[in-house]
């Protein structure tokens, strides 16, 4: 536990805004604030990554995806990573730790929340309402779309009207059009995906050449990651990043203020003094840091007077439904998951046995090694199975809305430590009955779509394990300090100057990929802070 009387040496640097974490949220915040003349310094436990080191130009790219570039930090085991104890969760959390954070690995599928997503308690009697509405975020969604580069098209009947996207949609490909016609046949909604992937050259980054596996990092920067969107701009405005700096604890005074942070770089502990502290370490890293920063006055971790730091962890439970198509297909041509999406079953429908709903995100085939590993068995059937599946499968990942439950949580593991000897997070998570019902409904409807598209065989994975892409809810925002960790601007109720700006803030999870909402929240908090002055 940290002693309250901290002596910070004079020669330490002093910053106005200390951002911890340089991923989707930290970068957006740092850009916005630095562009308005504020002094911003960011610490990240990882460094800048040279895109030419991404696997997709290497002949062993699929092997690298299984090993050094695995989505799972426990399997990748980079120096910048910290292990996560996932033994008590059916879903493994995935993330990347570097400048750009998990946007290095993400697939940049970027839908928005619906207005109803902010009102789950009022509409459906579960979870909570957000202290803000869709319309509070709308202009920040637009700003983020412009900065990150959104490809897409207006007119989607499942979502409110919105401003023009900066780029036209990515082409659907023959496979995408085939699936679109299947939805049309059923009279169900679909719409071209919004993606932060360039459909045309945009802001100095090249148009996508549709290689497929953009989730291993994009060597041409056609897929947006914040090391190439927000950071260069923020740095131009004077923002600084200290890389390979792992924050050990946030330092606080005896009043209600954060005063800096202790971080480890090159094996040494450094102290940095700051007037404001902004935490953007993602839905697992953020509660971990708050819990690690416990003091005599805050024995259960910083900002934890409600007892909710780390609680209400939400993933999106994912199922996968895949169809096999006869004929000579090459469905691996085109981005893996930036094609189209259906929100036919998004909103609550009382005639179903669950509340809230789900989105369907179309996915293509993969390379030969991944195909062999996911679609074949060893032995006498191997070649036949491979031949039936390679380049011939199309499917959907089902994104189910996850409702907050306090039993689902991030705690500090008593035994597991990272390479800096800091305690690691442990995930305790159980799939809810509502989620089970959503997934089972969705598997059924998705199978109907694949059947309508002409699939000769349909298989499913009812709950994907390696699918903890979305980390949310662990420091929820709200008006009431007893039932939430931060206020509507992400400021910890317990402190004057410590803000959270990542997915930890989510009150509910919606049924879409979360990052545009995370970044919109970060931009909104930046504006709040800069207007406050």
């Amino acid at each position, binding site marked *: 536990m940290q002693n309250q009387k901290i002596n910070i040496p004079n020669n330490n640097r002093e910053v106005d805004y200390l951002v911890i974490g340089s991923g989707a949220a930290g970068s957006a915040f740092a850009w916005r604030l630095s562009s308005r003349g504020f002094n911003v310094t960011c610490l990240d436990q990882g460094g800048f990554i040279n895109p030419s080191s991404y696997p*997709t130009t290497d002949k*062993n790219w699929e092997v690298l995806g299984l090993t050094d570039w695995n989505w799972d930090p426990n399997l990748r085991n980079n120096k910048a990573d910290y292990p996560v104890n996932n033994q008590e969760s059916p879903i493994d959390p995935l993330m990347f730790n570097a400048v750009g954070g998990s946007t290095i690995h993400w697939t940049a599928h970027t839908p928005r929340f619906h207005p109803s997503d902010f009102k789950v308690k009022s509409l459906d009697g579960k979870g909570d309402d957000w202290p803000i509405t869709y319309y509070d975020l709308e202009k920040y969604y637009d700003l983020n779309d412009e900065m990150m580069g959104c490809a897409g098209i207006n007119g989607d*009947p499942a979502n409110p009207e919105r401003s023009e996207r900066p780029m036209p949609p990515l082409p659907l490909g023959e496979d995408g059009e085939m699936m679109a*016609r299947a939805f049309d046949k059923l009279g169900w909604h679909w*719409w071209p995906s919004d993606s932060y992937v360039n459909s045309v050259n945009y802001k100095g980054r090249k148009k996508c050449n549709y290689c497929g596996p953009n989730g291993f990092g994009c060597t*041409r920067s056609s897929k947006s990651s914040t090391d190439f969107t927000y950071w260069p701009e923020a740095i131009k405005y004077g923002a600084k990043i200290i890389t390979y700096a792992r924050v050990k604890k946030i330092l606080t005074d005896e009043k209600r203020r954060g005063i800096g942070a202790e971080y480890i770089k090159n094996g040494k502990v450094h102290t940095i003094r700051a007037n404001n502290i902004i935490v953007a370490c993602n839905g697992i890293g953020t509660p971990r840091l708050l819990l690690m920063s416990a003091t005599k006055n805050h024995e259960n971790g910083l900002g934890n007077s409600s007892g909710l730091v780390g609680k209400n962890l939400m993933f999106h439970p994912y199922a996968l439904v895949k169809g096999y198509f006869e004929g000579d297909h090459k469905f691996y041509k*085109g981005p893996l998951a930036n094609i189209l999406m259906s929100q036919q079953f998004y909103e609550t429908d009382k005639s179903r046995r669950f509340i809230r709903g789900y989105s369907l995100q179309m996915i293509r085939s993969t390379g*030969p*090694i991944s195909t062999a590993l996911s679609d074949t068995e060893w032995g006498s059937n191997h070649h036949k199975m491979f031949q039936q599946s390679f380049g011939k499968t199309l499917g959907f990942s089902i994104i189910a809305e996850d409702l907050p439950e306090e039993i689902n949580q991030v705690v500090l593991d008593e035994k597991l430590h990272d390479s800096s000897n800091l305690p690691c997070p442990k995930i305790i998570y159980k799939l809810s009955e509502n989620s089970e019902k959503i997934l089972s409904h969705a598997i059924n409807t998705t199978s109907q779509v694949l059947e309508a598209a002409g699939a000769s065989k349909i298989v499913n994975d009812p709950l994907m394990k390696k699918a903890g892409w979305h980390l949310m809810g662990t420091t929820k925002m709200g008006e009431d300090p007893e039932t939430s960790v931060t206020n509507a601007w992400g400021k910890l109720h317990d402190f004057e100057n410590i803000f959270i700006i990542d997915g930890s803030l989510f009150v509910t999870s919606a049924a879409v990929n979360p990052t545009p909402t995370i970044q919109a929240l970060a931009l909104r908090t930046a504006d709040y802070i800069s207007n406050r002055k």
Partner: protein
Amino acid sequence: MKELFTLTEERLLKDLMNIMIPPIDDLLGAGDLGLLDEIKDLFLKRPHYIKSIKKVIEALSLHPETRLSGGFFGMEDEKKINVIKEIENELSEDFKKLTQALFSVYYLDERIKSRIGWDIKSPQPKGFDLPPWNPKILDNVKKLKPFWKAV
């Protein structure tokens, strides 16, 4: 450099590889294609793979059925398959690594790539072509009335 596998281990592994990926058309099984060296090359720097593979080999050779038959090679194919399946169940994580290693080297081999029609070295820098965006595809779905819930 110390050999990764003993000669006996190598022999068993080759046999196992032939069973896991048998011959097809004019191509030999994975063991006889000489892919063991590729496994060694590719996974030399990833010792946890080698460790798992060794564990599987050891379990296969110590299995009571194997010993009763005087070794893995002496067994009939059906028996071998049953023993492998048992070990796969018992050492699922290690077996998964072995499968990853084997499928990786197999599908990286030029002879296999040419058989399956995968003629690219890596997804980048060339990428693929897609036909351009076709706005007419939206004609039907545009007829749906807006159905998001206003709050």
